[in-house]
């Protein structure tokens, strides 16, 4: 697999994301084959058999259009797994246990992880405005997989998973959001109340990491005995409330604190354009301010797709692998990140 090409590519669901708040969203289904122990209580041979059975049946599904890659984590180079982890294709578990097999299409919309805590994890990524379509389409595929593979299921509990919190339709939704005005005005309490109301958990930029950068946060909601429709509706309501709050705060910022916000935006723009070193936190914080500047109309010369192109590329492993930087050489990593951001800013500069 061409790692450099993968690093340079932008996942299909991130292309030209035109929303101010939701960058992309995902749905993950957790499934186990009927009559078999969950992965932690399986022998290596049994796990091998399960992987074989799933692989034989999923590669012919219409979702790939014969355009997919299979990665055996056991044999894959560590650097590839780290890149896949930052893009949400591999999980923390993939890297830790090296037990799973990954299948994904070039567009990175559909991902299957086989042999993690649950036999199968099916992930569907989608654009900001495609929640309903994503839910419908993902249910068709997971339903087809159930017909072929027959998943463990029990009336009254739903699909049976290794962790009881996924009971029900055994899934979670997540949405990557950008909420700079909520953070800038310290509206954390109002934001936390929305999260608590819908039992939403806050996560970091990478799939299973907790580290948040700038005003980019990932919101996650788990089925907890709910149906897919129930979870979707909760997520939808939560995102609507967060969107309203963020828009209210953006109005307040524009009307009541224009100088402060303009100062913040142009300082960030200058840092991104001129700095020689950019660590990951600085990069995301300044990109967050710049994005707000573009969305509020202060900065007109940067094409919005710049933000899609830069999002994954500035992550630590993307930088290290692409520029062959040693893992402990944080200065070199920061230097390369600054250079990359400036290169992309130049590339996506336009006259408006």
């Amino acid at each position, binding site marked *: 697999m061409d790692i450099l090409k993968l690093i340079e590519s932008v996942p299909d669901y991130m292309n030209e994301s035109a929303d101010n708040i939701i960058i992309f969203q995902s749905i993950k289904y957790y499934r186990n084959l009927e009559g078999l122990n969950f992965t932690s*209580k399986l022998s290596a041979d049994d796990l091998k058999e399960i992987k074989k059975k799933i692989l034989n049946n999923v590669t012919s599904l219409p979702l790939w259009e014969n355009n997919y890659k299979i990665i055996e984590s056991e044999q894959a180079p560590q650097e590839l797994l780290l890149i896949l982890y930052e893009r949400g294709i591999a999980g923390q578990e993939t890297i830790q246990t090296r037990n799973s097999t990954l299948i994904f299409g070039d567009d990175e919309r559909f991902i299957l992880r086989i042999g993690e805590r649950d036999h199968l994890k099916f992930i569907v990524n989608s654009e900001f405005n495609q929640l309903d379509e994503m839910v419908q389409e993902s249910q068709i595929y997971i*339903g087809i997989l159930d017909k072929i593979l027959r998943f463990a299921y029990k009336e009254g509990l739903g699909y*049976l998973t290794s962790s009881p919190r996924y009971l029900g*339709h055994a899934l979670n939704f997540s949405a990557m959001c950008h909420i700079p005005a909520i953070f800038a005005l310290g509206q954390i309490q109002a934001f936390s109340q929305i999260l608590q109301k819908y039992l939403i958990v806050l996560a970091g930029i990478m799939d*299973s990491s*907790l580290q948040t950068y700038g005003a980019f946060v990932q919101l996650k909601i788990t089925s907890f005995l709910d149906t897919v429709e129930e979870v979707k509706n909760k997520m939808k309501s939560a995102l609507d409330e967060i969107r309203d709050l963020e828009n209210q705060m953006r109005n307040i910022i524009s009307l009541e604190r224009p100088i402060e916000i303009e100062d913040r935006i142009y300082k960030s723009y200058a840092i991104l354009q001129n700095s020689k070193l950019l660590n990951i936190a600085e990069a995301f914080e300044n990109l967050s301010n710049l994005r707000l500047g573009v969305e509020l109309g202060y900065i007109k010369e940067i094409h919005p797709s710049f933000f899609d192109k830069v999002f994954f590329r500035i992550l630590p492993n993307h930088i290290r692998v692409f520029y062959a930087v040693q893992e402990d050489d944080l200065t070199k990593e920061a230097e390369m990140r600054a250079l990359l951001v400036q290169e992309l800013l130049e590339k996506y500069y336009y006259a408006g």
Partner: protein
Amino acid sequence: MICQKCNQREAEILYTEYVEGILLTTNLCRICAEEAANGVREMPEEEMEPADKTAKCPKCGLSLNEFRMSLQLGCPNCYDYFSPFFKEVLSRVVHRSSFSGERINPDRFLLYIESEILKLNDKLKELKDREEFKEAIKVRDKIRKLESIKKWISSN
């Protein structure tokens, strides 16, 4: 997601602190969350455990202690074996103890697929008329994909 404190058990609780104007959130497992909250427990231990604390699932051999440490079950049978324990916990956490949905059956999406194909065909025509060929190719591919799904469902 793994607990950020012990790095071993599954994180189940979003532990939130507001310190000097900054929101600090940590995803913790139940045990670390209890420690972080100075030992304030959500429910007394005796209520969480069945009478026989050494009992093991007869199919996979998972013990309740193992489960409490990892918050992971060993097999579908564990759900029957530890049923009283789960029902209590679930009703406290999500205020219900059973799931009212059904198995996801792809057949019920046939109508949706057919209406999507119709909609996309109209969109394709409009895009071709406007000579927006790049977008038209995307829509055409989507139609092909939906048609192959429809064919797959009908033939199975």
